[in-house]
């Protein structure tokens, strides 16, 4: 039978010279003293080679090639990088690099210890004529296994029974590890563990074997096993993560590029950045485009926008930015998050109703990989996380936290006077739970719920005083988000997600001896939203993300407060409280589409369109927002990008209230535009830079105008669409991806943001304008299970208005300041260095971490504001955090 031509490519590894060291390689001298000599005592050995993919055009043309490559190998045998030393073209160079990057080596040794090294080799591409294969031979018996044709986690002759099987788990967390290469060294058999960490070797006969497990984020593991005749053994391989930190280490995910700029933080980064309290929103503040928030608050100040102009979306559903007491910890437990994306401008159309920026929190699916959890304790609160399978297809996770400030506050507060009482009970807690159900071919369903509560009760009564206090506040937040995902075939995916939420804010104030409140406020906000999304690649050159975005929100106000909106000169007037009921409703229906078109290999155009219609407190509004992004790949390392687009944001429905607002208020608009580049010179380093301009108009601003009605009465205007806020700037992010020992980034933003309230007003700097903001973040794992981190912040001061005098107000006994030019000065430059150290102890089934996080380790005095004496003659700075250490303990299993 005539044979057929097949293309094969193979390589011959030739260890030419250890280029990383000056000395010539020579065998070790057994008589030599054990002093470091820098001599290669063991050459690296190729354990796993991957055949390169033959370039199709070259194969058609019958071309062959030899590609010389230089391979950098780390001390564990993992390939760090590959360079072609003599390029041959026709796609051979790229194919050779791609293959060599997947090699796994038994590492070289220097002075008897594993060490990094660089080797050279040649990968040959040849075309051979091969005969038709003979029928499969009868499976042999004994140590002559055939190449497995089954799943990757099976090796050996799969016609024979499994004699060695096992599972690879991570030490400290018991996480079952997929993608680990498990080899029987003596037989040259390789298996790659499955999602559940399992591997199987078929047909291995009795004998002593060494099992080697290799994975790039873990230390190599070599274990000897003995297999008796007719025996099957099971092994459990515990792999120790490199650097001792059981958390994954990734900086930025790969993108399906349907936006111009997205900056992603993975969950493990959210816990280890000094000075951020493990709070995901605060970590985002270290990215470019973000202004520094005063007093360490978690405000999102994106490219000169107001905090309310940036949306926070959890699985696509907008939520308020919620923190516990006084802008304290975020209610979002990091363990429940998979990733956090910041879109500082030109964001995709699937995020709507905001014209500042977008922050997208993606929730972490639960896994059926056993019971896992973590717990954390510090001085103020304690919390935990657990996840577990309930059935084969159903799994759940739960996270919770509660403060115990109230438990010890009584010890530090002064005792109440005799016959009086003093109670201060601040309590906060939050919880989150998630259920995932695997429907296999029918998709995956999930249900997520999150809630938080902050309550404060203050009672202060002195029998000798006419004044007493009984004050209660409560802020509660609750959301339920459902999700269903399934494949639509090919590369398309359908996501459906309903959500329901209820937020309440209550306040009551009374004298301690009073029977009921003197004043009270209750705000209840109920929301119902629904998202339907279809995303994927309907065509090899087209990526699509389209869907519906529906939001319904009803807010009810019930207040017992002094209301003076009918008084003309209300200053100083003692108005008794009266009951006030108000309500506001929003219905928003949005449809969007982002379409990524690969015009050619280099140019990608992403036209987008978002249509929104609203019914705001009975008034109809609509917006149409077209956008366009272009990305042009100059080469594999450098991509240029540009964008322009319209963004719209509805006013708060309260602004349309017939009594306290203006029913004629309309939609706010903004135009985003910018150009930039992304440069990725190698696997570890990247640079992302952009120049932007944002023009915001029709902003809703407060107005003191009053208009006369037809009947001669007057009405307050309250709000108008007259505001403008423009900003432009430059930002750059230089980032080192996470490797075995380090990660970090340097971000710098230059910006100019200015605004005017009304058309005839003067342009002013915005209240948060900061021309220069620099953030440097670094994390280093020196070994012995230590992780050290530092964050340095440098930012221009915020605009301030000088006070140049004062006038005594003889009608109220106080002084009124005389201001200089508005926002004509700045607070001093802000600098702060935060550090963090964590020591982990790894046990087989759990790990323990002790950390200290020190904010402002140099105790720098940073001025956040200025306070004045009663007649504005003397001033003193209001400073930010002094040096503030926090000690904490966390365990993970």
């Amino acid at each position, binding site marked *: 039978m005539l044979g057929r031509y097949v293309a094969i490519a193979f390589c011959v590894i030739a260890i030419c010279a250890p280029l990383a060291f000056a000395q010539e390689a020579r065998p070790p001298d057994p008589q030599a003293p054990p002093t470091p000599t820098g001599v290669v005592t063991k050459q690296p050995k190729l354990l796993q080679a991957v055949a390169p993919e033959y370039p199709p055009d070259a194969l058609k043309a019958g071309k062959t090639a030899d590609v010389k490559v230089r391979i950098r190998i780390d001390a564990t045998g993992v390939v760090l990088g590959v360079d072609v030393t003599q390029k041959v073209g026709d796609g051979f160079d790229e194919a050779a690099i791609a293959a060599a990057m997947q090699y796994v080596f038994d590492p070289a040794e220097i002075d008897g210890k594993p060490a990094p090294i660089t080797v050279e080799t040649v990968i040959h591409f040849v075309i051979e004529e091969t005969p038709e294969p003979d029928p499969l031979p009868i499976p042999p018996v004994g140590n002559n296994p055939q190449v497995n044709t089954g799943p990757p986690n099976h090796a050996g002759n799969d016609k024979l029974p499994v004699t060695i099987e096992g599972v690879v788990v991570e030490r400290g967390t018991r996480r079952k590890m997929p993608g680990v290469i498990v080899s029987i060294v003596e037989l040259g058999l390789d298996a790659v563990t499955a999602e559940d960490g399992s591997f199987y070797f078929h047909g291995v006969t009795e004998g002593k074997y060494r099992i080697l497990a290799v994975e790039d984020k873990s230390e190599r593991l070599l274990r000897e096993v003995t297999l008796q005749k007719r025996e099957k053994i099971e092994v459990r391989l515990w792999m120790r993560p490199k650097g001792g930190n059981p958390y994954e280490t990734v900086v930025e995910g790969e993108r399906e590029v349907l936006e111009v700029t997205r900056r992603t933080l993975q969950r493990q980064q959210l816990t280890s950045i000094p000075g951020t309290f493990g709070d995901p929103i605060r970590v985002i503040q270290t990215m470019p485009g973000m202004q520094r928030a005063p007093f360490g608050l978690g405000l999102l100040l994106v490219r000169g926008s107001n905090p309310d102009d940036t949306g926070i979306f959890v699985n696509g559903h907008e939520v308020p930015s919620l923190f516990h007491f006084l802008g304290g910890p975020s209610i979002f437990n990091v363990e429940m998050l998979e990733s956090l994306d910041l879109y500082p401008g030109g964001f995709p159309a699937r995020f709507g109703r905001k014209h500042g920026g977008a922050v997208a929190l993606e929730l972490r699916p639960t896994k059926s990989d056993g019971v896992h959890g973590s717990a954390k304790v510090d001085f103020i609160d304690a919390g935990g996380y657990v996840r577990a399978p309930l059935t084969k297809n159903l799994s759940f996770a739960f996270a919770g936290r509660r403060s115990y400030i109230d438990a010890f506050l009584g010890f530090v507060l002064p005792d109440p006077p005799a016959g009086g009482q003093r109670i201060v009970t601040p309590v906060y807690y939050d919880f989150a739970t998630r259920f995932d159900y695997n429907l296999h071919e029918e998709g995956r369903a999930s249900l997520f719920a999150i809630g938080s509560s902050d309550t404060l009760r203050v009672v202060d009564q002195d029998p000798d005083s006419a*004044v007493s206090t009984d004050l209660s506040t409560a802020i509660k937040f609750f959301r339920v988000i459902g999700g269903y995902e399934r494949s639509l075939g090919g590369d398309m995916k359908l996501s459906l997600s309903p959500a329901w939420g209820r937020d309440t804010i209550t306040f009551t104030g009374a004298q301690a001896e009073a029977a009921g409140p003197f004043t009270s406020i209750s705000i209840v906000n109920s929301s119902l939203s629904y998202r339907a999304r279809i995303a994927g690649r309907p065509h090899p050159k087209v990526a699509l993300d389209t869907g519906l975005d529906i939001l319904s929100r009803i807010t009810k106000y019930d207040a017992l407060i002094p209301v003076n909106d009918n008084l003309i000169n209300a200053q*100083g*007037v*003692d108005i008794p409280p009266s009951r006030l009921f108000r309500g506001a409703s929003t219905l928003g229906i949005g449809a969007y589409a982002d379409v990524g078109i690969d015009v050619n290999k280099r140019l990608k155009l992403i036209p987008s369109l978002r249509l929104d219609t609203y019914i705001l407190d009975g008034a109809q509004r609509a917006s149409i927002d077209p956008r366009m992004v272009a990305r042009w790949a100059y080469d594999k390392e450098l991509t240029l990008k540009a964008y322009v687009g319209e963004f719209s944001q509805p006013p708060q429905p309260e602004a349309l209230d017939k009594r306290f607002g203006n029913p004629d208020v309309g939609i706010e608009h903004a135009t985003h535009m910018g150009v930039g580049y992304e440069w990725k010179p190698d696997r570890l380093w990247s640079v992302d830079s952009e120049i932007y301009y944002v023009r915001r108009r029709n902003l809703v601003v407060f107005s003191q105008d009053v208009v006369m009605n037809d009947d001669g009465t007057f009405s307050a205007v309250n709000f108008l669409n007259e505001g403008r806020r423009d900003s432009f700037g430059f930002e750059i992010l230089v980032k080192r991806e996470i490797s075995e020992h380090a990660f970090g980034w340097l971000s710098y933003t230059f910006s100019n943001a200015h605004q005017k309230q009304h058309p005839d007003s003067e342009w002013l700097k915005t209240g948060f304008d900061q021309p220069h903001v620099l953030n440097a973040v670094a994390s280093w794992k020196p070994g012995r299970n230590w992780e050290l981190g530092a964050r340095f912040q440098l930012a221009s001061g915020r605009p301030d208005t000088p006070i140049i005098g*004062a006038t005594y107000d003889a*009608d109220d006994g106080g002084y009124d*300041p005389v201001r200089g030019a508005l926002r004509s000065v700045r607070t001093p430059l802000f600098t702060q260095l935060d550090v963090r150290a964590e020591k982990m102890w790894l046990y087989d089934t759990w790990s323990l971490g002790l950390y200290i996080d020190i904010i402002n380790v140099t105790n720098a005095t940073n001025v956040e504001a200025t306070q*004045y004496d009663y007649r504005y003659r003397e001033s003193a700075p209001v400073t930010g955090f002094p040096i503030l250490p926090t000690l904490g303990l966390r365990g993970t299993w």
Partner: protein
Amino acid sequence: MRALAMLALFAGACGTFEEPSIVLDLRVIAMRTDVGDSTPTKADQVLDVDLTEEPQVGDLLAQLKETDVTAWVADPGGPESRLVWSMTLCLPDDEGRCDRTMPHIEFGAGEIDDPDTSTSFQRPFAKILPTDSQTGQTIVAMLLREIRENPVNALGGVDLMIELRIGRSADPRENDLYAAKKLRIAPRIPLERAPNTNPNISGIETAVNGLAAVPGFASGGGQSIRCSDPNYQFAKATVSPGDAVTLFPNEASETRENYAVPGLDGNTIVLEESVSYQWLGTYGSWSDETTGGGHDLLGNQSLLGSDWTAPFIGGRDFLDVSLWMIQRDERFGVTPIETCITVVP
């Protein structure tokens, strides 16, 4: 963790400034307007005008009344010095000073002796005389401007501003202090609207350490007396260092008026005045700088009185301490009382 941070923050924000209730140097204590010649005196004016059309200048001029403006000042810490002052009637700018780009008039100026060493009361005092052609025309111009530019505020009453500028005669004028007081001129809308009567007290009760009254205390009848007054020096009210002296104002009858104002919706709103008290002294300390006034958000309405604690005076034989109580209603009505207590070991 965050709460600790915030506590640390607030701790770092505490400044050490002068105590507002202790008068250390040149300071305007109070200003008062007395409109017309009625008794009790009025703090503002109500005119009979029809705002549906622009009022006639002659109608306005005919109704405007003469207004006395008095300022109480103190200068305890500085060198003995005469004080130079001036008063201007104007419309305020955004910073609470006279907007000199709009109609305004300086209606009084002069010098007074050092108010703390003079044996007689030394107070800046001037009259606003609408019968004076320039003054009258200026007031009318200001009223008409407000009626045209801001009809709602005109409906509630046009608040003209009286700006007092005062400084030591030997000092550069840029060191002058400024004080401001509003003079409201309102239309009689609704018809029940009446001028505001300046508040008053019938006397101040005292108690030393919660027991007996201060012997010789001079404000029992609600009258002022000065430490440098020879009569006081002849018969002093004395307390010991560290004594807590309770001062409690007895309000005169009808001090808290019911008054009617127009609402934006055209209806009449009837309110009852609240009255507040500001307490100042040259030495010692006060339990409350201000008392009385409206309700806070919890429903508390503080007591009217305040406790003054006498200072320790070192090796001195005695220390004369000036005390002020400034009574205010919520419609710019003011009555200041000045008195003196002597601390003796």
